[in-house]
């Protein structure tokens, strides 16, 4: 059974906090809930950006996600 939205958000956040690299691809979050469709996970991740729990990091050609405190530290 797929996780609830709140459970999925927590799983995504945990994944982003524990990941050795601060930036993660959207596909890295798919593993947080194999039952959920990629489009659902994408929508939840983007909602977390609006809430400030995640942040986009873009190379220009690829966009990745990160925990704001981790990526801001690295950026500065």
């Amino acid at each position, binding site marked *: 059974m797929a996780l609830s939205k709140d459970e999925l958000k927590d799983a995504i956040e945990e994944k982003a906090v524990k990941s050795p690299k601060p930036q993660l691809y*959207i596909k890295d979050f798919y593993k947080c809930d194999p039952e959920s469709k*990629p489009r659902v996970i*994408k929508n939840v991740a983007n909602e977390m950006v609006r809430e400030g729990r995640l*942040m*986009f*990091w*873009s190379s220009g*050609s690829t966009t990745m996600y*990160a925990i704001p405190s981790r*990526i801001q530290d690295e950026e500065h």
Partner: protein
Amino acid sequence: MAKHETPLLDQLETGPWPSFVTDLKRQAEKKPECWDILGILELSYKERITHWKHGGIVGVFGYGGGIVGRYADLPKRFPGVEHFHTIRVAQPASKYYSTANLRQLMDLWEKHGSGMTNFHGSTGDIILLGTRTENLEPFFWDLTHDMGQDLGGSGSNLRTPANCLGQSRCEWSCYDTEEACHHLTLHYQDEIHRPAFPYKFKFKFSGCPNDCVAAIARSDVSVIGTWRDDIRIDQAGVKEYVAGNYPPNGGSHAGKDWGAFDIQKEVIDICPTDCMWMEGDELKIDDKECTRCMHCINVMPRALRPGADQGATICVGAKAPILDGAQFSTLIVPFMKVSKDNDFEELIDFIEGIWDWWMEVGKNRERVGETMQRVGLPTFLNVMGIDPIPQHVKEPRSNPYIFWKEEEVEGGFERDIIEFRKRHAA
């Protein structure tokens, strides 16, 4: 007064062509940060290494695209370009601008940025080169609220869709490219502004097989106008061309004396499928052999026109060279009606079928064309629920490795794998 010595860049001004160096020097009189662009570029020419750092967290709130972060790695030496972010502004369909709109946009860019631009980027957007992080939100506010314009796509987003002039200017356009582009741009606002995919995704709309927007070379989904009945022939017009009364190619090569128009040499003999001939003074076409190269129509536009049963061919998987080199898109649907009457429903279903599959199967930074190549066309067609057809095959018998399933063959078949392996080792 120049801030940096730039002897290498100065050389570029000595050629007969207009020079971006001259443009930058002129702009630097108004925007001093442009001196630092020249300085950092001169240093890169000298050291043969870039001093730009690529990417970052910059953007405007709620958007995951449209801004490309750019920083200098020598900010103390070149403080004017410490931040030098790129902004992509979505171009209007077919790139129709009013001069008032362009002036307003340039005034806005002088106010918030360096004033340097690139018209247009290869995706089609207006590229505004160079601003600081703190200017991004004020620029975005003015752009959206005062001008009613929007940012384009970047990153792993749907990129700004692009189209040819279509039916607004062109009699050959087989569907309304502007309407299709505009409709899908509005329909996919979320995908344009927020990352959704393993990598970038583009669709482009060309009204006819001349493909003026180069969809077949540059887009993951190329929507190229075509027809499925016969080329319309006006035999009286053919006679006028043969008699030399109409200039071939619409007179576009009239600057040189090419001699009298020769329909045999200039049209019939160079038809790629050999499907045309003259019977007396009438031009005949075996339309089932026509591959829509457009040459005959381009040469004799007053005598030949695309057929009347019009729609589009859908090809998938073009890209510029990143991993495996450049590739054209592959024909998947030979003919599809592309119409506003049903809100482009069939096209939208097709695109979303690709997305659902690619989002799951595509690797990070893998374009959909590369995913198709990796899994093979038969698998892709199977996933998309499309029956294989002869048009999917480049040439007969070049790839014998088609494995039929029992249910795909009428009457099925029985196969004893143990017996088979006795004769053919694995």
